[in-house]
Every structure is written in structure tokens, then in C-alpha cells.
């Protein structure tokens, strides 16, 4: 399956390079065409690939780790918290003074949210408290983002809230790719190595411990990995929701419901979803381009509804 997914991702990546409002830029036959491809489409397609990949992977990790098929960076507030931290870095001018401030702030925000959520899960109250905690984090982060933007002296900052929260990878240049990609790749490497222990964790923490898992250091490792991935992704693209929810769901049954086995396919499906969605928003005949996050939410939110209904309260009750 992974081979087919890889082919799909490669095809969508190439499609993403080929499609855009200027259609075939190489027909211009001069540097401008080259600039369009290199400065606009390559960063956009590569960011789509990486961000989709890490969001899908983060969803798979969170779902396996929290033993909860509704866990997703956007739904439980990890993206929103990362977004708030990135907004702070951006509007305070810190990001302009020190380029790495933007992804680092996003990573810190995401890691704090993951730690908060883990605290809620540890106290043993299950799915409901996890989701309520997510609601709370989302609400606080959204309010704080509005506050920071209202304080910014740039007259356009406040109008940006809706655009920023909706998430987009339009017109990011190579600098954004350069500052975010390393963190996303390192984060992915950290969690990909933990697949075996995720399987053990799916049997419960006590069982995992008896199988030789150091649950404490594993928790730190996963927190760090998800923080790096979601934080860096959100700091450049805003909140792109539901990718982390959909991707593991699509492949879970095909890997025998092993959380560790969902990691790589989820990453590939996530990348395919974001690349595909980002190509679709470019082609939709809307007056101005639809935000990528709006599109993924339009498609993803009904998916969440379906997942909740299918569950029949089985895990909602625990």
C-alpha cells in the first residue's frame, strides 16, 4: 500500500507544481517564468507536502497515544495553541528580528498544548475530558490571538484573524520553507521511531510498562515530536484542520488497527490530502482563492461527525 501512496503523493506534488493562476509559466520563456516556478510554486508544493505529511503523522501519533480516534491537532487545540504562539512572535516583530523565532514559538505553543492534554488524559477521565480540554484550549487560543492582533499597530493585523485562523500556504517564499522544514523533518523522525511502543501503549500504560516501555520518556519523546511537527507547520501555514483526523481513519482498517502501523501510511495520506486540497482551492472559481484550511474543514468536519456517530458512544463513555 505504501508504494501506491508514494506514487500518489509524487503525482500530486508534480500536479501542484504545474497548476496555478498563471498556468504554464515556462511559456513566458524568461526569468519571470522561472521565478514563478521556483519562488512561488516550489515553496508552496513543498510546504503542502511536508505540512500534510506531519499533520497526518501527528494525527496518527495522537490517536494511538491517547487511545482515542478523535484526537487530531486541530480538534484538540494543539494547532490553535501553536498558532497563538506564532502570532505573538510575528506581531511583536520578534520573527522579523530573528528568523527562527517563528517556528520556535509555534513549537513551544504546540508542546505546551500537548502537555496540557496529556495531563487531562493522565488524570484518567477519558475521551470527554480530552475533547473538553481541547475545546477550552481552542477557545483560549482564539481569544488570545484576537487580543494580540488587536494590539498590533499594523492596521491590517486585526482583519487578518479570520484569514490566519483559516490556514493557507499561498505566496510563502523559500525562506519559510527553510525555517520550517528542518523542524518538521526532525519531529517526524523522532515519532516514526516510536511506532513499536505505540503498539504497546494501545494495550494500556500498565501493560506497556510490563512490556518494557519507559512510558515517561516515551511521553516526552512524543510530546517533543508532535510539538516540533505541528508547531513548525502551524507557524508558517496557520491552522489546517482535520487532516490529522482523516488520514489515520482512512488507513486504520488496512493495517490491522495497529497504531504503530498507521504512522507511515497516515503521513503519506496526509501529504496527499493537503497537496490535493491545495490544488483544488487554486482551481475553484471563487473570486478570491479559498483558504486551504476552510476547504479541509469543509471536507473534514462531516468526517468527524461520521466518526462520532459510528462510535455509538463506545469510547465516548469511557
Amino acid at each position, binding site marked *: 500500500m505504501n508504494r501506491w501512496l508514494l506514487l500518489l503523493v509524487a503525482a500530486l506534488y508534480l500536479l501542484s507544481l504545474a497548476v*496555478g*493562476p*498563471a*498556468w504554464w*509559466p515556462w511559456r*513566458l520563456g524568461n*526569468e*519571470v*517564468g522561472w*521565478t*514563478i516556478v521556483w*519562488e*512561488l*510554486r516550489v515553496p508552496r508544493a513543498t510546504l503542502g507536502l511536508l505540512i500534510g505529511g506531519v499533520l497526518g503523522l501527528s494525527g496518527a501519533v495522537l490517536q494511538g497515544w491517547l487511545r482515542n480516534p478523535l484526537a487530531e491537532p486541530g480538534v484538540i487545540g494543539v494547532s490553535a495553541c501553536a498558532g497563538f504562539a506564532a502570532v505573538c512572535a*510575528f*506581531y511583536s*516583530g520578534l*520573527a*522579523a528580528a530573528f528568523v527562527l523565532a517563528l517556528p520556535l514559538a509555534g513549537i513551544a505553543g504546540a508542546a505546551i498544548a500537548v502537555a496540557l492534554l496529556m495531563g487531562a488524559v493522565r488524570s484518567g477521565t477519558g475521551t470527554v475530558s480530552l475533547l473538553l480540554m481541547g475545546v477550552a484550549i481552542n477557545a483560549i487560543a482564539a481569544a488570545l490571538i484576537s487580543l494580540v492582533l488587536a494590539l*498590533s*499597530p*499594523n*492596521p*491590517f*493585523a486585526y*482583519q*487578518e484573524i479570520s*484569514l*490566519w485562523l483559516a490556514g493557507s500556504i*499561498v*505566496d510563502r*517564499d*523559500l*525562506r519559510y520553507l527553510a525555517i520550517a522544514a528542518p523542524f518538521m523533518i526532525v519531529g517526524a523522525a523522532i515519532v516514526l521511531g516510536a511506532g513499536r511502543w505505540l503498539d504497546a501503549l494501545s494495550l494500556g500504560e500498565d501493560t506497556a510498562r510490563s512490556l518494557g516501555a519507559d512510558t515517561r520518556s516515551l511521553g516526552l519523546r512524543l510530546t517533543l515530536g508532535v510539538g516540533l511537527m505541528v508547531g513548525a507547520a502551524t507557524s508558517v501555514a496557520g491552522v489546517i484542520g482535520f487532516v490529522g483526523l482523516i488520514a489515520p481513519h482512512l488507513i486504520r482498517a488496512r493495517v490491522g488497527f495497529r497504531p504503530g502501523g498507521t504512522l507511515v501510511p497516515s503521513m503519506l495520506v496526509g501529504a496527499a490530502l493537503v497537496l490535493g486540497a491545495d490544488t483544488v482551492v487554486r482551481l475553484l472559481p471563487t*473570486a*478570491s*482563492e479559498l483558504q486551504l484550511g476552510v476547504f479541509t474543514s469543509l471536507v473534514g468536519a462531516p468526517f468527524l461527525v461520521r466518526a462520532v456517530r459510528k462510535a455509538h458512544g463506545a469510547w465516548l463513555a469511557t
Partner: protein
Amino acid sequence: MVTLNLCLDQMALRLAAPDQLVGVSYLSQDPRLSVLADRAAALPPVRDSVESILILRPDLVILGQGSHARLKRLLRDAGVRVLELPWATSIGEAETVIEQMAAALGREDVGRSLIAGMREQRRQLAWKGAPRGTAVYLEANRGTSGKGSLMDELLRLSGYRNLASELGIGSFGRLSLETVLAGQPDLVVLDGTANDNPARATEFVGHHALLALAGQAKLASVPTKYSICAGPDNFETMRRLAEAGR
């Protein structure tokens, strides 16, 4: 008298006698948006709340057409005269607004000399001859000004065809950077200082792709305050366009 929007403020600050104007909108005190910010700073700032207007005890409130109906009713109920002036989107319309405001203030002579000055500057700065190229105006959030907008007129007067108008965009629309590059404009007009206080909306000012285009196109930096309102300040825009085109 009190004026209630940025563009009317700018005209009132020029037309009114020193003791005539008792308040202008708070936006006029922002040096990024208002050319006469230092003069406006001497006056109390007014927000769109009836209380902050009435406390200044004006006889006349000048506001833009399309202001909130409740605001107008409350002002009239309080016995204040209200004058509504249209939003000018061209230099010609600005002249009409100036005439109307000057008449309301009893300062027709000042209005006439202001308009005469504008016509003189326009005559001097207007490009004579065939269009010298295409230009595109870029503003926050990938916005641009097309047909029927003030910037369209200013570009045309300065001898440029507006790329946005040719792409069929109305007075306000959006253009992706890709479309801008593919259109290969000869002149890119933007507010180079827009991103001094960073915002995603305005960060395109430093986008690599635009810098790459700069090798082929000329770049004109026009601070927003010279192009946001139709009026005498627009000639500073034209002066900068002319300078960049040289």
C-alpha cells in the same frame, strides 16, 4: 464643525478657518494614514460614537454617505446639523466634494484656490503621450485596484496601463503574486513601508518573487496615505510614479 472620516478630515483640515474645526476622526492622527497627522493631533479625536461627538458641541457634523443611519438620527435628534458628502473615488469627484464642503463652511475662496492648485499640479504631472507601459498596484492581503478606482486613474494619468483593469478586475479585487509576475508589469506600485509593523497581510512587500521581478520591472513605493483618499495628496503619488518611471 466635526468631520467623521479620514478623507473628509483631510479636506476639512485644509478648508476650515482655525476656529471652525473642533474635531476630526481618530484615524487622521495616525501618521501612516493621514498626511496632516500633526495638524490633526492638535484636535480632539472623534470615534463613531455619538457621545464623543456631542461633547465637542458642534453646529455641523460632516460625514460620509453610507454612515450608520442610527448615528445620523441621533445627531439630528440632538439638534446638530448633518451634512453627508459622497466618497470620492477620483480627483474630479474630490473637487466636487471640496466645493460642497467649502460652501458649507462659507470658505468658497479657499476651496477655489485649493481646486485651482490641484488642477495646476495635475496639468504639470500628467503624462503626455502614448502609455509607457503597464503597472500594477499591490496592497494588503493580495488586494489590488482595478477599473474605476482612484489608483487606476492615477496610473492612467501617469502614463501607465493598469494590469489589474486589463485583467477585468473592478475597483477592488485580488491578484495572486503568480498572476502579477505572469503579467510582467513594467512598474510595480506598493507601499514599501507597509510591513514595518509586521503582518501577514503586508509581508508580500519583501517576497523573494517580487524582488526577483525587480530586475525587470521598476518599483515605486507609495505610502498608503498618499493614495487612500482622493484629493490634493494624490499628486505626491503621481510625483513618485513619475520618479520611478524615469
